[in-house]
């Protein structure tokens, strides 16, 4: 999928369509020790020569505590379903009749008013085949009450080993984590935190398991510089309407300095993404219980002070047709907003900013547990191309806005 996205050679407005199969491999492939691939190079382009490598990010302690996930129990909610309907649903997954009877029997079936939920035994769920678990989770995720299934924890696309590296988890827990990970669409995912926590040998490991499962992957991206670099044109690419420093003067000494041949591109970002990169949103950034999401992040890329107008979830379509943004023409430029829409409904599902080559700046979800990061667009899209058809559009800040240089 990745290379198909980046064939920028044709002209015209950018709109890319994707069709995905309903379900792919139910378990993730084992990532070996060689998943630490080190520094990789981007395709050269007007952005210059970039190198990048993955990093792991962990939410701050207070966020992990506040999430309540440490005390999470394995509960399957079936809103507005009768017991008969639930049994029928479970039967379609290949779950054995004895297990269905166990899950819906005394001690595991909970009635709250006229609502039914199940608390299946952890060890039995852990022992289910990946195929059966995958089908059960497909059912559960249609209700947002099943938080871990509707919005599973993403497993690193860049390698499972990277995700658990120096995590403080025991080898046994790591094995369970890997075994219970699965693919939702093409996105490596994990939903069984309560099961994994039950394997903790002590409170410390329990804490480390929670923090590890909540890890996010990001990229550190560096611009390679040498005395041969065409600094003028490279810095023109990285220019932005809220630029507050002379990039050429800033970068030029680095081209002359032995031993210093890279510039972290955090220094080339506009102020707001530079401030936010690799951080988790502060609760102070929200209004009520609404916190910055991908749209807020993408549309505030060039704003010196972010506008909370973009917290308004009902206005995503409006943002695309308002006075600031227009459909982009090829090739994409630094900061262009990439919109992923549901091909059936046209509803925007995700937004991020084009940085260079196949690297984007993104916040994947509204959760305070999801940081602002650089990622490969291909890996971002894995989390969003789950409907039958999806489309990707590019939008650009209108030129009259780019002239309002501060």
């Amino acid at each position, binding site marked *: 999928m990745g290379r198909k996205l980046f064939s920028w050679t044709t002209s015209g407005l950018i709109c890319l369509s994707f069709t995905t199969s309903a379900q792919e491999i139910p378990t993730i492939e084992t990532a070996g020790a060689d998943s630490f691939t080190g520094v990789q190079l981007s395709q050269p382009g007007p952005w210059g020569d970039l190198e990048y490598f993955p990093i792991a990010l962990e939410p701050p302690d207070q966020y992990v505590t506040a999430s309540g996930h440490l005390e999470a129990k394995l509960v399957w909610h079936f809103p507005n379903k009768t017991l008969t309907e639930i049994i029928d649903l479970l039967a379609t997954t290949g779950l054995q009749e004895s297990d269905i009877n166990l899950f819906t029997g005394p001690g595991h079936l909970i009635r709250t008013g006229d609502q039914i939920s199940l608390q299946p035994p952890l060890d039995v769920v852990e022992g289910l085949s990946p195929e059966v678990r995958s089908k059960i989770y497909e059912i559960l995720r249609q209700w947002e009450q099943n938080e871990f299934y509707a919005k599973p924890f993403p497993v690193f696309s860049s390698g499972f080993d990277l995700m658990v590296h*120096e995590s403080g988890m025991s080898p046994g827990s790591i094995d369970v984590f890997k075994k219970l990970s699965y693919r939702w669409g093409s996105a490596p995912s994990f939903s069984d935190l309560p099961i994994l926590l039950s394997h903790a040998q002590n409170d410390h490991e329990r804490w480390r398991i929670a923090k590890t499962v909540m890890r996010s992957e990001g990229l550190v991206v560096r611009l390679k510089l040498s005395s041969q670099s065409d600094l003028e044109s490279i810095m023109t690419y990285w220019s932005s309407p809220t630029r507050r420093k002379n990039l050429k*003067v800033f970068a030029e000494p680095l081209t002359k*300095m032995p031993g210093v041949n890279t510039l972290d591109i955090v*220094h080339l970002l506009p102020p707001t993404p530079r401030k936010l990169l690799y951080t988790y949103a502060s609760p102070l*950034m929200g209004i009520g219980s609404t916190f910055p999401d991908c749209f807020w992040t993408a549309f505030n890329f060039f704003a010196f002070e972010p506008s909370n107008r973009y917290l308004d979830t009902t206005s995503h379509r409006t943002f695309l047709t308002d006075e600031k943004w227009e459909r982009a023409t090829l090739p994409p430029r630094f900061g262009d907003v990439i919109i992923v829409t549901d091909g059936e409904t046209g509803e925007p599902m995700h937004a991020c900013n084009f940085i260079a080559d196949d690297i984007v700046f993104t916040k994947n979800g509204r959760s305070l547990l999801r940081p602002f990061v650089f990622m490969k667009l291909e890996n971002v899209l894995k989390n969003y191309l789950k409907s039958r058809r999806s489309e990707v559009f590019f939008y650009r800040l209108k030129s009259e806005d780019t002239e309002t240089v*501060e």
Partner: protein
Amino acid sequence: MIRSAAALPLPVLSFTMSTASFRRLSLLLLASALGGSTDLFPTMLQGQESAVPNAPIFKNLKPGPWGDLESYPVFLQAPEAALKLLPSPSQQTVWRFFGTTRDEVSALFQKFFPDPDLYREATVRSVWYLTPEEVRVHPTDRMVLALPPLARLELMQTLGKYEENPFHYNPLVIEGQDVRAWFAGTGLSEPVLAAIEATSFPFRNGRILTEVSYALSKVDDEIEEANFLRAMTRNRSLFLRLRLTSHDTLAPLLDYWSQNIRLKETQPIMESIIRTPGVERLDLTHILPPTARKYLYTFPTTAEGINGIFPNSLWTSLNFFEFSPKVRYNSPDKAAEQLQSHFERVLPPFRYGDVITLVEPTTGKLLHSCIFIADNVVYSKNNSSMLTPWVLQTDADMMTHLTRITEFQVVGWRHTST
């Protein structure tokens, strides 16, 4: 208000800077008065750094709890949009003396120009305007050129008390002694460079140019004038990179760099660096808190002054760990209140995130503040000008910019939440 020095319960570090070089005085003060017992500004005792645009120097900071830090200079220049707001200074040199008399100014000139011809030129052939408020002198080129360095310093300290003398109040700072190296690549012609060389004088860790009008009078055309204005905004800052090579050494580093409120965990990032083949350095920018990272290496814009006040050093220091900056910290009174209520006084050795304040010795008035990063490097904005960026720099470079601060005491503060 911070209490006066006499009433301070903890020892403070005093500095006096008059006509001799700051570095030499610091050495004497540290060696005698303090007995070399402090780690404050330790590299003031080391040799002159000569990092300049065409001869960058890569160096290691002194080892310490901050780990293995490498620094190299970068140069900042205001963006064109800011330069458009900068009016071209007059090419006519004017010295405006307030609250003084013609006789007092004549006496000053007698000291500056012991040569009788020059003194006569200063008092008879140059143009003077006298009003009850001021004595305004338009010196001749010969006078401007003939001033010895000590006289230039005294003139700066005399005229620099008044904003009406803009380049004595906020002189052009050349960070280093080599004028031509500092202005390399700026497009300035030989006569202009020669004029700057002739009229600038050594000051602390660099050189100072107050006679900007004289240098401007040597430009050929508007293009060179624009180049001159652009070059005036040049600043030297530092890039810092933390070397990370082993998990075994990570714990003390995390202890040092994990200060106060952060919205990310430093440990996984550092471990990612250690783990990745071919990568062993982390740009320190990633460790700085969000607001500090947002402003580092940038110049303010008109948007920052929308409340009528542009960020100054106090704003910069007290907002270092704030996710959303608070305008009120621009006020020395409000800043002092915040320090008294949320910080505690600390002595060297300072650690990452400590607020270092320079206070007026007798009144305790806050003169300047910065954030201690590591070794001799601070995070600072040296005044509220739109042409002054937020930088990482050595304490010595910072002091070169603080031309109006001559006597001060250093008081360190640490947030009580740490």
